[in-house]
């Protein structure tokens, strides 16, 4: 029915959802590869169940994988344009995210009474009005797929294995994607299993054909983004961080030791480093979080770059080690993945509620720089920046990311190693001469003390967690020494505000409304602001990569707007921080559902059609 013209879209988000056995990840990945090769910007966001493998058909066991693609900023936070629901449970769990008027591709073969019941439906959701307002494409996937591969005479079980390619083919038709990238991939992958290759190929094509034959549907066309030139790849958040560590080792000339205790999904970092074996990086699995952080700090004392990763309650468990690094004034980079809390909250879901903990969660006055990652690929840059700060200021640095960012993927221009920032630390001090003893706490212009590599003759010295005399580093209980050291450590961190970029804005430098984002809300805010600006709203977007200290001009920038609104996946922590530092009252848009904002949700809010649920007055931040 090629005579219906396709509808043009700027971008779209589709979501595959089903059981463990539905190869959701595979479909999503292929769709993303194909789209990236077409020149779309692509953002992928898997959504895995909290349990390893739950009972098929239950809500708890639904796997989902979203692919956002199009010509402009894409975030995991789009309303879903097409939902592929392989099971009733997949429909139920994901329907709230589908845009009004969106498309539901339903695998009717699994919409049987037994399955609705497992999903918690009383009746068939395909026919009881649940889907009123959506466009439903009913596909008896198993049946049609069995037909498609019948010539191969496979067992029914083996035949059914290729059903995901049937669905993928249909989706390729729906969004006008060519089949060849996936066909190539299949050929390479199953070179040694010709039957599998053939079945998958047939299924893919049959799915596409099914789409072409659909009455009344014409499908869509999504324009490619103009970007480049350069070498690009897709990268997910965990990989970007792992590559950042590898690049940090390379550009600093120091080995990196990455020690961590497994915590899903932060453990992906350990997996990646073990798998990639980047030169100069030593990954180490520790027995618990505090051991991991201590190992990393020990490595830093040894002149290597110590990295550790934590998640959830793990950050509290290592607060003493971070405090020790503050006192010893040694490098240490802590990559902390935020997830729903308190305690273990909702596994596998993003939140941003550990910001104030990162800033304040240590005993004594122990300020440390805190940075946050804004998108999957951004983790690479943030690790390099954290490495710069940790060595230049001899201080531990906390990098915040979240569960969603670790899983999500986006296109990334592969940097040239040689042109990455030069991160070599200051040279070791000269050996002492008579009358000029070595001072381990002598400070340079940035108030940083020297980083001496053990093994260097003549510079033997002792550090530790007790207060010291400045310069000599000798333990001191003198009141004045303590006050001096507290102030010096404070100033050392505070002045970093002058060594980081100013708060950059998208949009005009002043106006009615500024959206201020930090961390993973970046994408949704950027998308909202772009769409608002397109429709004529005078809105700007500021994003904070450095949360502590804040860029020096933060207060000035914020004051230039009538209203500043801060969407956060918490109860308003950045708002509280800004108020405590500048007495500036920003508006809080809190969301604590274990889900990222949608760009449209924010744009709607700005258009006045969305009533944000603000905090109840007096709620403790």
């Amino acid at each position: 029915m090629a005579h219906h013209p396709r509808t043009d879209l700027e971008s779209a988000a589709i979501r595959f959802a089903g059981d463990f056995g539905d190869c959701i990840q595979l479909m999503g990945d292929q769709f993303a590869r194909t789209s990236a090769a077409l020149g779309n910007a692509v953002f992928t966001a898997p959504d895995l169940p909290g349990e390893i493998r739950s009972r098929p058909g239950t809500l708890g066991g639904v796997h989902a994988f979203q692919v956002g693609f199009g010509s402009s900023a894409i975030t995991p936070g789009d309303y879903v344009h097409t939902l592929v629901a392989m099971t009733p449970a997949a429909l139920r769990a994901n329907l709230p995210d589908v845009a009004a008027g969106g498309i539901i591709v339903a695998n009717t073969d699994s919409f049987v009474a037994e399955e609705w019941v497992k999903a918690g439906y009383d009746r068939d959701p395909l026919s009881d009005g649940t889907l009123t307002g959506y466009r439903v494409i009913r596909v008896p996937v198993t049946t049609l797929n069995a037909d498609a591969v019948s010539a191969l005479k496979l067992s029914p079980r083996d035949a059914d294995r290729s059903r995901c390619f049937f669905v993928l083919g249909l989706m390729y038709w729906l969004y006008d994607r060519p089949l060849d990238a996936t066909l190539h991939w299949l050929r390479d992958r199953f070179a040694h299993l010709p039957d599998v290759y053939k079945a998958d190929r047939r299924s893919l094509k049959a799915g596409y054909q099914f789409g072409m034959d659909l009455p009344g549907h014409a499908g869509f066309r999504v324009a490619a983004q103009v970007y480049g030139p350069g070498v690009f790849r897709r990268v997910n958040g965990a990989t970007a961080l792992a590559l950042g560590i590898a690049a940090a080792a390379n550009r600093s000339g120091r080995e990196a030791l990455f020690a961590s205790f497994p915590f899903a999904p932060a453990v992906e970092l350990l997996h990646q480093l073990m798998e990639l074996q980047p030169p100069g990086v030593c990954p180490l699995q520790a027995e618990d979080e505090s051991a991991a952080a201590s190992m990393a700090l020990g490595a830093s004392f040894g002149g290597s770059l110590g990295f550790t990763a934590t998640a959830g309650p793990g950050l509290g468990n290592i607060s003493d080690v971070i405090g020790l690094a503050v006192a010893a004034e040694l490098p240490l980079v802590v990559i902390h993945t935020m997830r729903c809390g308190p305690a273990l909250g909702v596994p596998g879901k993003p939140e941003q509620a550990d910001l104030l903990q990162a800033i304040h969660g240590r005993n004594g006055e122990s300020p440390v720089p805190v940075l946050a990652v804004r998108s999957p690929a951004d983790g690479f840059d943030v690790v390099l920046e954290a490495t710069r700060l940790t060595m230049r200021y001899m201080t531990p640095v906390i990098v915040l990311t979240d569960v969603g960012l670790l899983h999500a993927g986006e296109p990334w221009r592969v940097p040239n190693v040689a042109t990455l920032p030069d991160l070599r630390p200051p040279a070791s001090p000269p050996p002492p001469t008579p009358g000029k003893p070595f001072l381990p706490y002598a400070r340079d212009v940035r108030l940083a003390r020297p980083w001496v590599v053990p093994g260097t003759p003549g510079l033997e010295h002792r550090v530790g967690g007790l207060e010291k005399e400045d310069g000599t580093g000798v333990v001191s209980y003198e009141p004045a020494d303590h006050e001096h050291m507290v102030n010096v450590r404070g100033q050392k961190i505070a002045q970093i505000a002058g060594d980081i970029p100013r708060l950059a804005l998208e949009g005009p430098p002043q106006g009615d409304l500024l959206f201020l984002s930090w961390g993973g809300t970046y994408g949704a805010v950027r998308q909202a602001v772009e769409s608002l600006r397109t429709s004529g709203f005078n809105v700007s977007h500021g994003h904070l990569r450095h949360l502590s200290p804040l860029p020096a001009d933060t207060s000035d920038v914020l004051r230039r707007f009538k209203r500043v609104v801060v969407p956060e996946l918490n109860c308003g922590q950045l708002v509280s921080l800004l108020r405590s530092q500048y007495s500036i009252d920003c508006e809080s848009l809190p969301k604590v559902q274990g889900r990222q904002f949608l760009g449209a949700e924010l744009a709607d809010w700005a258009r006045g059609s969305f009533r944000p649920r603000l905090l109840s007055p007096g709620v403790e931040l």
Partner: protein
Amino acid sequence: MTGTSLPVLSAKDFATDQTVRWCPGCGDYSVLTNFQHALAGLGLPRERVAVISGFGCAGRLPYYLNTYGFHTLPGRALPLAVGLKAARPDLTVWVAVGEGDTLGPGVGALLHAVRRNVDIKILLFNNEVLGLTRGQASPAARVGTRTRTTPHGSTESDLKPLPLALAAGLTFAARTADVDAERLLNVVRRATFHRGTAIVEVYQNCHVYNDGAFDYATDPSIKAETTLELEHGKPLIFGSDRERGVRLTGPTADIVELRDDVPLDDILVHDESLPDPTQSWVLSRMTFPEYPECFGVFRAVERPTLDEILHVPPPGPTRALQDLLAGDDPWTVV
């Protein structure tokens, strides 16, 4: 000193100018002096030695040693030393920790360092009391010990560091006492050159909170009766007339009088190098007054160390960073 050979260092070269701040009479003083002497005798340059300490009285050790040093927190010295050694296999890493720290918040790190056979050396100051916090029961306090938190005598059974660590795969285990200069020198030297985790347990007198706890084992007038000096390849004999010996009946150690009709052949011969740790486990558990307490080296065996493992390049070619950045599936836009 000639121009070409390594300078010969003396114990004084390993001392710092810091005032030593332990209670007068504390056993830590002897440990410090003996340890400085031991270091001087190793032929290692100062800058290749790092001493990591935990918290507690023992934790002050690094301040008095002119090497690289790091005074850390309860429970953190061992993992910190593990990280240091993993990053810097060329350093000789000593850890100075009290038993309260090591068997309390630090016991997990101890067992994991041991099972990984990390090439660090642990000087374990065992005074069987929490000294720095002013005298509470330690996990190593023997039943009946009175402290401020066990006013009626402790009732819990004690943890002994060596048997525990042997159960986790310790490759070098030794025990000495603060005042035994010669043995301390000897075991420190052996521990240093052992490849793998080494524990040197030092019975250390806390003069203020547990005074005399080890008198039975250090008092020259009785120690021949109460202790047994382990010597590799020699039968386990003790007593002022070397008249008693240790026999193993099944898994249980018995003390027998050699005067009886027990032939010397029945006496267990000490073997540090047995692959099976059971014999060293049994010996390290022997406690006065039921048994003489053993001093010296219990076990010294070899297996791969963590840092060796880490620095063996894993199989397969390593990929250049630029390659890794590009990944398996890059595309080019022109």
